[in-house]
């Protein structure tokens, strides 16, 4: 969309070891400030694609650049919400959330304040002193989200962050995410199984097919930001929802 894309993927192929191709011929250019959702069947390579963008695994063929450099070089711009909560069992909730700030050397006062704010956002202020094993599955995932939000990265990669949450919490976090984005605009890469969520959040939706993972459809979402919760009830929204669901269903047949 932009003249100089923030993330550019060209002819990307990925296989693990001598296994079959997991991703094949992925081409994608994502500009500064975009919010791209990936949807597709389980096992089609969405997480792998996110990990490739983050430089956590390397492409078998093709090219990925982030801000013009290889992803490994651009990591300070990015943060990742993994599909699993990935909490450190020996750190309390607040300590887990604090970790990235600690590692990047923020001042203690600032850390405390940001951690408290983000725990508030995900509704876990009361659980700050708990250990991960004392949390429910959804709470663990929310800790992981809070951790990513404290960082306020330029590029945020979210791998099914809201899958384990009830619809209300999920909707609220969707809105919170957009609100945060309107304040300090980040470029988002988002994996979800909820079409509604994808439409509500994204500026673009990439539908992936399976065996191997290929881009089968790209759907532009024309609604302007900031988006209000009421958007979800509008006919235009519901129509795009249906189109997207259709595109997703087409993958399998």
């Amino acid at each position, binding site marked *: 969309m932009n003249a100089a894309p923030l993330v550019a993927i060209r002819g990307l192929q990925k296989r693990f070891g001598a296994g079959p191709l997991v991703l094949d011929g992925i081409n994608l250019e994502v500009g500064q400030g975009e919010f791209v959702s990936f949807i597709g069947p389980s096992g089609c390579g969405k997480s792998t694609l996110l*990990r490739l963008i*983050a430089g*956590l695994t390397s492409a078998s063929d093709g090219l990925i650049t982030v801000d013009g450099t290889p992803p490994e070089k651009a*990591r*300070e711009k*990015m*943060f*990742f919400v*993994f599909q*699993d909560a*990935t909490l*450190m*069992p*020996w750190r309390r909730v607040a300590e887990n959330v604090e*970790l*990235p700030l*600690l*590692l*990047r050397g923020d001042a203690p006062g600032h850390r405390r304040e940001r951690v408290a704010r983000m725990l508030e956002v995900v509704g876990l202020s009361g659980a700050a002193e708990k*250990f*991960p*094993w004392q949390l429910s599955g959804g709470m663990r995932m929310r800790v992981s989200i809070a951790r990513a939000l404290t960082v306020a990265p330029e590029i945020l990669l979210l791998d099914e962050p809201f899958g384990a949450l009830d619809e209300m919490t999920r909707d609220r976090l969707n809105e919170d995410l957009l609100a945060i984005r309107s304040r300090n605009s980040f470029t988002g890469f988002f994996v979800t199984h909820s079409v509604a969520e994808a439409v509500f959040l994204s500026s673009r939706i990439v539908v992936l097919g399976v065996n191997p993972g290929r881009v089968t459809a790209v759907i532009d979402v024309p609604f302007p930001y900031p988006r209000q919760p009421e958007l979800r009830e509008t006919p235009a929204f519901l129509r795009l929802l249906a189109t997207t669901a259709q595109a997703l269903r087409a993958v399998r047949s």
Partner: protein
Amino acid sequence: MSPSLRSRLSTYLLPAATAAALIVLWYVLKAVFQVPSFVLPAPHEILVAAWEERSFLWPAALVTVRGALLGFSAAVGVGFLLAMALGFSPRVKASLYPLILVLQMMPVTILAPIFVLWLGQGLPSIVAITFMIGFFPVVANTTMGFISVDRNLRELFVMCNATRAQEARYLRIPGAMPYFLTGMKIAGTLAPIGAIVGDFLAGSAQGGVGGIGYMTISYFSQLKTPALFATGLVACVMGFVFVGGVNWLHWRLLHLWHDSMVKKE
């Protein structure tokens, strides 16, 4: 049975019961096989000997405790650092591991004269020997802990642009604690033995006070078998203190989060 009663049962009564059963078995075996006291004294004879020899055993124990404590600290500290180096990168591991193995496997009896030559007779050599005997369990365990870190957490640290030092401090070291503590426990049981062997190989009764190792040979050569076993008792007591310390640390560091300690309701 209330939970607290039950836990007290496990902590105190059961070991006491086992100990009692063993002591009874000891007396029975001694009686049945007619084992004379100069081979295997009865428990009460050992206690009596320990009491009678207290004026020798006590200063000897102090000497040995010093060697054991310093050697243990060295084994734990150096072992931990070595393990950090080994866990740091596969290349460092490939370079250093064989050397560490040689150090561990070279019988200390052979190296003892070198220690004595370089460090002099007495405490420094004893500490060196105790270290040699106890450091490898720490290295082996801690290294295994360092390289067993959860892959997902490792990726989290990559995303955080953590430096190697940060990764060590916040991820690998806490993650390796269960392994490290196990190695430390083994080193703890070995430290008194190491100091005794060190006393044997490089000690002296300079100033008239030898360590427990010295007393052991002395009692052995004088056929004072109950007193000989009393030196063993002293060694065990020392070892229990060390292991107790490590267990306390284990509890302190792990009880809030590790699967080996947390009771899920």
